[in-house]
């Protein structure tokens, strides 16, 4: 199944949720509305012809203060049909908030915790949204473009 077929199926089902496409990226990407991501993912996983049963990767990106957006990139893969899809969605940088897809794929649990830890994106409906790589009392989210690290952590100078 090609990207065009997947796009046609998805836009038939959810005509209002797709905001654009990016055929330049590899695999080809669809831009979707962030507040509908869980519905879309659930449908993509359960559809008979698509059956995206694996979430390969989930990446959070901070686009910086100029655009004032953050992006979430979902790399989906279907093991039985061997097709790929990239879903991209944008959230407001000042209030990054979107539904969690942990109920669709358990892989998302830790990937979303990582995005929360490093970028401060909040996922509603996540069962256990805690920091994962950094200590709990670390200040700030390091992968934000305007991140400044704290001066001292437990009395140890952070700058070396």
């Amino acid at each position, binding site marked *: 199944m090609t990207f065009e077929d997947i796009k046609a199926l998805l836009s038939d089902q959810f005509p209002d949720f797709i905001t654009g496409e990016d055929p330049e990226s590899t695999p080809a990407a669809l831009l979707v509305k962030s507040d509908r991501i869980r519905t879309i993912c659930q449908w993509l996983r359960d559809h008979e012809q698509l059956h995206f049963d*694996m979430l390969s990767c989930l990446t959070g990106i901070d686009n910086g203060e100029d655009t004032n957006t953050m992006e979430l990139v979902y790399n989906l893969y279907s093991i039985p049909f061997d097709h790929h899809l*990239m879903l991209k969605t944008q959230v407001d940088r000042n209030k990054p908030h979107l539904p969690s897809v942990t109920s669709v794929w358990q892989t998302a649990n830790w990937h979303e915790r990582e995005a929360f830890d490093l970028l401060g994106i909040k996922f509603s409906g996540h069962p256990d949204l805690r920091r994962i790589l950094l200590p709990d009392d670390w200040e700030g989210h390091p992968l934000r473009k305007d991140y400044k690290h704290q001066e001292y952590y*437990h009395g140890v100078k952070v700058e070396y």
Partner: protein
Amino acid sequence: MAVQYQYHPDHLTKSEPLKYTSDELKVGEMILNIGPQHPSTHGVLRLEVITDGEVIRDVVSHMGYLHRCFEKHAEALPYNQIIPYVDRMDYMAAMNSEHAYAMGVERMLGISDKIPKRVEYIRVLVAELNRIASHFVAIGTYGLDIGAVTPFLWMMRDREHLMRLLEWVCGARMLYNYIWIGGLFYDLPVGFEERCTDFINYLKPKLTHLENLLISNKIFIDRTAKVGTLDLDLAINYGITGPMLRGSGLRFDLRKVDGYSVYPELEFNVPIGEGKMGEVGDCWDRTWVRMQECHESVKIIEQCLRQLSSDHKRTRSFDPREVVPKKIRPKAQDFYVRAENPKGELGYFFRADGRSEIPFRCKARACSFVNLSVLPEISRGHLLADLIAIVGSLDLVMGEVDR
């Protein structure tokens, strides 16, 4: 002199608090802390175990003790200078990680079909040598975890030969920086093909010995069969890949599925778990799959060596850096690349902005990180001693979990 660390009793509970509080426990349950410096956690993994007597009710992993900010570093470094950082993620299989990374950047630049065949064969050769070394550590330390010391020593002895071979190729024992974007650091040293053939001939009977010594040992089977069984549906839902997924009975290997590099030209099988000693997807199956993969890697290495000494022989004019780009500046795009590492699917997500030689974002999808997340599911209801067997069978490298 700068003040080092000012101790305060709150620090531990503030920085790494437990998930469970004592109020949430039922009668008879307790919280047991394992790690982070426990030898059987294979690095610095801390496990918060809720036990009822000796039966495990839940396991919570705490990690990040080896977090070295790979993704933050990658936002400040040119593509070619990220390779040494890539080495340090999965330090047991640095060649495989480099191969995946170099392949991704080459595809972004559109030069992947210009890479000479000899370079591709050398890449596959060193990656498969490293795969055997990684599986040896996985199986050897797994035996050590559950009480078998001798196989570990045998495997370290044979891994030492592999380390020496790779050291001869690129000068370093573990962290190579050998596979460059567009080529290699150097060609193979003169005489490597012959020496490597000797080693493979030495290794082949040794693999059978090791299999007899550990994998089909009665005590080993008793400790691992029907322990930590991972169902296939659950494995896919958790995104498990590599020998763990194949141990659960799915013939899924990216070397076959994606057919990258020269793998389509090579003949090898993909072993899967069959539940020979218990159930499909138990700890024994996972270890058995790793052992069989060593045999398959030996096959691949033999074919590579044959190619490297016949069709793609060393010539005086051969330059492994021929297509190494002077400036690495991919056009603006999002790119996801994946490859089969010894531990599973290693993926890199790149966002290039088209203006600079530095990636705007480079995320590593680490296989150990994803594989570790299934631990609570497969250890609930088992005894505490089995937890050690289950953690060992995941084949974790904390450098990759924490990045």
